[in-house]
């Protein structure tokens, strides 16, 4: 392994600019003559808009324009859409309500935009926004997904009676019912998967500029997938033809899913910039982010597990109500369906599974993919059920899992997925060793001596990543293909630019992608640069989410590098008067087989461009190749997280005493970066399990709408983690990579809640397990123990 090649913990190339304050985030950009935009937003969760009076605001100092939903409609700017079609049980398509970028007739959640003010300064825009008078007709609202479809609930979109978007199912109902009918034991759980606010530290932002001479628009935005943004804004919103719209996502300060989606504000910025013929800049403040970024999770689930006399799992039955919010965000429909129910088999060989999912509108912010997207919800259902079942049956939770693991591959689950490779025993065993499971009893006794409760909890999770084979997702309703593109440009002097459709917003692609190239071509890593995030530079790409940049994005680079190598060999052949087929390439050197004749990388790249030696006119000059890579399967990262907690029953305070994660991500390009991804994922999962929860009051007001009320994990809330790996290379892509971005967030909530419920001896510990929740459970557990 070379110091900068595949497998090395190479320090990140991008860090130089971030640690010196010279990064270039969207809000850092300022265009000459720009106006600042400020949105007037609804304070009501549900109301008709009777009148929007902008006259007073238009006269305020510095104001260039005040635009409303009516103006937007007059200019025939289309609404936002959800790009994944889901079909209900009865064969009818999902019921998608209109989503205008500025509401004209009706607002459906607090924070819905009703007007935008454009002014010379942000302060002027904000002051003028105060003067916009909106006359609302307040309507009753509903925020609880479990009540949204009830009789008499307020109707949010006319197209969706009873607020029902779809009722969908997956699996074999009859076979599952039969499994339950013959079960020896059935474990039942009611689960609420709490609603989360992604809260990437960089708030969303958009700057739009109109070039009158060319009738072209440029948008700088905080996007995880600028090409998809351009496609949607062009094809569905109808803003401008694709070739007249350039989208640039520069440095992006974290996304976690929330920056995949196309949002109203970027549409409005583009439209406004063209209308007023000046650049328009909008930067979200954190309060707006809480109200308008797509939230995550928010499931209400009833789940049952059937187990036979041999302690084998024979069936799983799940009913979930998924809160979609007030509008269907870009990929919202796929999250509680194909990203959720398809993972309900977990790491287990379960013969029969049946899942039903009802997706409902409520008067809350839209809900869409957030780190893990569907898979954390699935893992939580499966891993809680399995843990509780083991406890009810008096079995060791590790052994019960092991007994039911999938052991041979490929394995076809009853819910679409075909697991290609894995070794679940190996990661479980390694994790148990690392946490010293044998001596847990001793540690528990020690804690008890000090009046503390100690608990341990497992989560043996699986996820489907490397999203995704285009044909497969197409057959499931996706509106796009999920391949990736790459272009490798080799300069005459031998330096290399990699253009990728993946987008880095913390993942370190500038380093890992360069490592791949350095390794493959034997060139110094400093001579490789990675270009991403600009639709004018990179032709097309699908962006970064679903832990896909390694497995799919890098595989595209590998394909392009194959072509580069083939062509470079031909160039070397001309240089050494040999056939290209007789050239060997190793460590940056081209050698004629069986001879000591060789030429170096730099010589070949220069000759590719001067083309002096190309005889016969067969070979084109230059050295640049592109490739599209479409995966043949999802990848299936899996592993085992074990959490150990100590709880003070007097106060309910939970301390995480130990955390072990053993993940199988297949082959690894940069272990330092992979570990960092795991740490961050665990922190978000711990946040969900112990701290975070977005809550709306019955009037539809978001009462956890700031960092004062929404508990973000801070340094003192978390322990250091023990992170390790096992490796079964992924057979479905050339690098054997599975992906690591979401694992931590998927695995950890179940591990933590399993540990807490183990400690308190009571299964009813809803997330977030705050001290008061845990205290109550601990009291309940002690009462139960005393009886």
């Amino acid at each position, binding site marked *: 392994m070379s110091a900068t090649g595949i497998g090395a913990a190479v*320090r990140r190339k991008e860090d130089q600019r971030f640690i*010196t304050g010279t*990064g270039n985030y969207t809000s850092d950009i300022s265009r000459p003559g720009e106006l600042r935009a400020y949105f007037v937003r609804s304070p009501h969760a549900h109301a008709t808009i009777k009148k929007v009076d902008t006259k007073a605001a238009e006269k305020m100092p510095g104001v260039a324009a005040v635009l409303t939903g009516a103006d937007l409609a007059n200019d025939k700017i289309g609404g936002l859409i959800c790009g994944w079609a889901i079909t209900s049980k009865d064969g009818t398509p999902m019921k998608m309500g209109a989503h205008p970028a500025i509401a004209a007739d009706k607002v459906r959640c607090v924070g819905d935009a009703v007007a935008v003010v454009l002014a010379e300064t942000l302060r002027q825009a904000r002051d003028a926004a105060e003067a916009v008078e909106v006359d609302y007709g307040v309507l009753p609202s509903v925020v609880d997904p479990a009540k949204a479809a009830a009789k008499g609930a307020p109707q949010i979109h006319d197209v969706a009676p009873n607020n029902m978007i779809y009722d969908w199912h997956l699996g074999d109902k009859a076979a599952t019912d039969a499994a339950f009918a013959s079960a020896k034991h059935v474990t039942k759980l009611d689960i609420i998967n709490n609603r989360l606010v992604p809260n990437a530290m960089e708030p969303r932002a958009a700057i739009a500029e109109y070039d009158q001479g060319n009738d072209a628009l440029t948008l700088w935005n905080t996007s995880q997938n600028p090409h998809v943004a351009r496609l949607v804004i062009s094809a569905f919103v109808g803003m401008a033809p694709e070739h007249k719209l350039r989208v640039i996502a520069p440095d992006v300060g974290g996304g976690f899913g929330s920056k995949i989606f196309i949002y109203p504000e970027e549409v409005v910025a583009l439209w406004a910039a063209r209308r007023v013929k000046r650049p328009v800049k909008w930067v979200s403040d954190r309060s707006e982010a809480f109200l308008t970024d797509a939230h995550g999770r928010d499931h209400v689930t009833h789940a049952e597990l059937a187990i036979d006399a041999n302690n084998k799992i024979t069936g799983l039955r799940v009913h979930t109500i998924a809160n979609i919010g007030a509008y269907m965000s870009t990929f919202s429909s796929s999250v509680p369906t194909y990203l959720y129910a398809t993972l309900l088999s977990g790491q287990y060989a379960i013969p029969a599974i049946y899942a039903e999912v009802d997706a409902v509108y409520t008067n809350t912010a839209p809900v869409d993919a957030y780190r893990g997207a569907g898979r954390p919800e699935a893992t939580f259902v499966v891993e809680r059920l399995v843990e509780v079942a083991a406890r009810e049956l008096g079995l060791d939770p590790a052994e019960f899992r092991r007994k039911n693991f999938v052991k041979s591959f490929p394995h076809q689950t009853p819910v679409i997925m075909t697991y290609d490779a894995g070794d679940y025993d190996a990661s479980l065993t390694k994790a148990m060793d690392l946490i010293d499971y044998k001596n847990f009893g001793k540690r528990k006794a020690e804690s008890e001596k000090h009046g503390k409760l100690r608990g341990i909890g497992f989560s043996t999770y699986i996820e489907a990543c490397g999203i995704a084979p285009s044909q497969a997702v197409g057959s499931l309703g996706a509106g796009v293909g999920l391949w990736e593109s790459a272009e490798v440009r080799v300069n005459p002097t031998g330096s290399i630019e990699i253009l990728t459709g993946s987008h880095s917003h913390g993942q370190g692609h500038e380093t890992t992608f360069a490592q791949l190239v350095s390794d493959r071509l034997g060139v110094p890593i400093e001579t490789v640069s990675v270009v991403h995030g600009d639709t004018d530079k990179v032709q097309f790409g699908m962006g970064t989410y679903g832990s896909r940049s390694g497995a799919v994005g890098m595989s595209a680079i590998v394909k392009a590098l194959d072509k580069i190598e083939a062509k470079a060999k031909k160039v070397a052949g001309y240089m050494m008067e040999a056939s290209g087929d007789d050239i060997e390439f190793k460590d940056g050197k081209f050698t004629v087989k069986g001879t000591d004749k060789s030429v170096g990388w730099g010589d070949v790249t220069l000759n590719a461009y001067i083309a002096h030696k190309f005889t016969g006119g067969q070979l084109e000059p230059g050295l640049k190749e592109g490739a599209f890579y479409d995966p043949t399967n999802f990848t299936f990262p899996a592993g085992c997280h074990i959490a150990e907690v100590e709880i003070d029953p007097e106060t309910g305070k939970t301390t995480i005493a130990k955390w072990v994660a053993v993940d199988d991500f297949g082959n690894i390009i940069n272990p330092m970066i992979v570990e*960092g991804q795991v740490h*961050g994922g665990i922190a978000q999962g711990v946040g969900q399990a112990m701290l975070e929860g977005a809550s709306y009051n019955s009037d539809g007001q978001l009462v956890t709408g700031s*960092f*004062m009320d929404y508990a973000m994990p801070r340094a003192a809330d978390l322990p250091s983690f023990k992170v390790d790996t096992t490796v079964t290379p992924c057979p479905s892509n050339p690098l054997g990579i599975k992906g690591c971005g979401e694992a931590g967030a998927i695995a950890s909530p179940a591990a933590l809640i399993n540990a807490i419920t183990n400690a308190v001896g009571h299964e009813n510990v809803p997330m977030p397990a705050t001290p008061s929740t845990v205290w109550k459970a601990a009291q309940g557990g002690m009462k139960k123990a005393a009886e």
Partner: protein
Amino acid sequence: MSNVTVTVNGKSHTVDVAPETLLVELIREKLRLTGTHVGCDTSQCGACVVHVDGVAVKSCTMLAMTADGASVTTIEGLANGSALHPMQEAFREHHGLQCGFCTPGMIMSAVDIVNRKGSDLDEHTIRDELEGNICRCTGYHNIVKAVAAGAKAMKGGAKPARAAE
């Protein structure tokens, strides 16, 4: 509008500001030093931390006018020319950043912790002292390591040791 004179990263600036202008607005918008970030509107996240007369301050909570006559150091002024400050070096070495958005505030806070608490910092102290800085990416694990190593390096005046692989 009134005049404020501040020395930022060693350079004196006299700027005309409205009375309600925040220090962070002065730094980002008037001086175009965009390394100092804004991550919230309730002074909770620490993305905006700078040093005012040598002490860490959340620049989103301070009026520009109160900084009149003060000496301000932002992330852009921490390195000594092209030689990185040991704390910057430690963040890179220990992978204490991912998206980089919280990083300037984290580094400025970390240097302040060392200034106040010395260079021998245990994990518990570092975690407690980072109370005012939120990072959504790293889970803090590597930030804690970076701060400890950076603190040691600040004392030695040397570059932080390369981390064990």
